């Protein structure tokens, strides 16, 4: 019987003790980075309004950028997408990216419209 879980082609995933050490070093680096970024986000969330009253909309962009940094490291290092072939990486990221841009555009455009209609006519 043909079985799916037996890999007949060369599995690229195995690595030696020496390579493992380097990979673990990278994992620990990303761990520290993710923790530090999360800590920065929480501190900004707690203290921003005391430091810069009335400018909450600015810190939102900082949050989004820091989140994208975290997401990049999780996807590229932890999920090993950075180690995959470039065409596979594009296959995953580009369709999702296009859809994401579209839906964010719809979100901002339409929500602004709904908000202003209510503001003007209600």
């Amino acid at each position, binding site marked *: 019987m*043909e079985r799916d*879980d037996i*890999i007949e082609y060369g*599995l690229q995933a195995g690595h030696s003790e020496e390579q493992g050490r380097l990979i673990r070093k990278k994992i620990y680096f990303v761990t520290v980075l993710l923790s530090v970024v*999360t*800590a920065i986000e929480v501190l900004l969330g707690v203290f921003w309004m005391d430091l810069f009253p009335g400018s909450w909309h600015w810190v939102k962009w900082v949050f989004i950028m820091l989140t994208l940094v975290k997401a990049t490291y999780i996807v590229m290092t932890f*999920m090993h997408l950075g180690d995959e072939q470039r065409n596979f990486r594009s296959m995953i990221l580009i369709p999702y990216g296009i859809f994401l841009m579209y839906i964010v555009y719809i979100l901002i455009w339409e*929500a*602004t419209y709904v908000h202003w209609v209510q503001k003007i006519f209600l």
Partner: protein
Amino acid sequence: MSGEASNTLSPAVVWGGGRSPLHTSYGKIMLWFFLVSDALTFTGLLTAYGFARHALSPGMVWPIGEEVFNSFPGLSGSYPLMYVALMTFILIMSSVTMVLAVEAGHRMDKKGVVKWLFLTVVGGFFFLGSQAFEWAHFIHGSHARVTLADGRTAYLAENPHHGHAIDPATFTMTLGAPRSADVLQGPEAYALYQSAVSVVSGANMTENEYGPTSYANFFFFITGFHGFHVTTGVILNIVVLTMAIKGVFHRRGHYEMVEKAGLYWHFVDLVWVFVFTFFYLI
């Protein structure tokens, strides 16, 4: 994987030809496609949240995460976002132990895989427990919103615990916002409270003390759906851990199943990173 195709096509260009066109196994590619579709689901949910918030009717105020989620189990007082940050940290740590399990699998180190996978499962349970506390606290609430007979809005200093009666002598409300400086106290305040038009305490599907109804509904749906993913992930991890302990992967010659479970688990962590930002921080 070598099906009919390998009989008619050149072996060099098909899956059964000794190499994968993408240098990745079929299972991993399909899991990635599933993750993309699941990511679109969460994108839809968070976008809907953003829409509801951005299109908010004039005069309504969307709650601020730092003010809603500011309690820490076992401690009184205000610790804004500390508990959620701890939850995030737990999930990131369990993601790290997962990637270490994958790394150990690449070296065919069965002991390492079992150790790190076990820690991943423990982290998953810790996260689920934290989320249960978070939900319980959110549903119980901390500053019930009171609409007084004269139209003003007041907030209780502290919600009474289940089954505890309110003592009029120490009864305290603040006007305008939770913990504001405008304090009403004592039996007179209690009389106002008793003649109030409505008291909304905690959160349910139709009303909540924090803000618009949709706020609590989005909280329940988004964190609930994510919690469902974590639960699924923990179950998957337990299955893979059991198989690793029994030596199934060692006999198979590769630990790719750990990688696949890991991909799903990291995805759960990735979603939480976005939920944390868009629901709690912004």
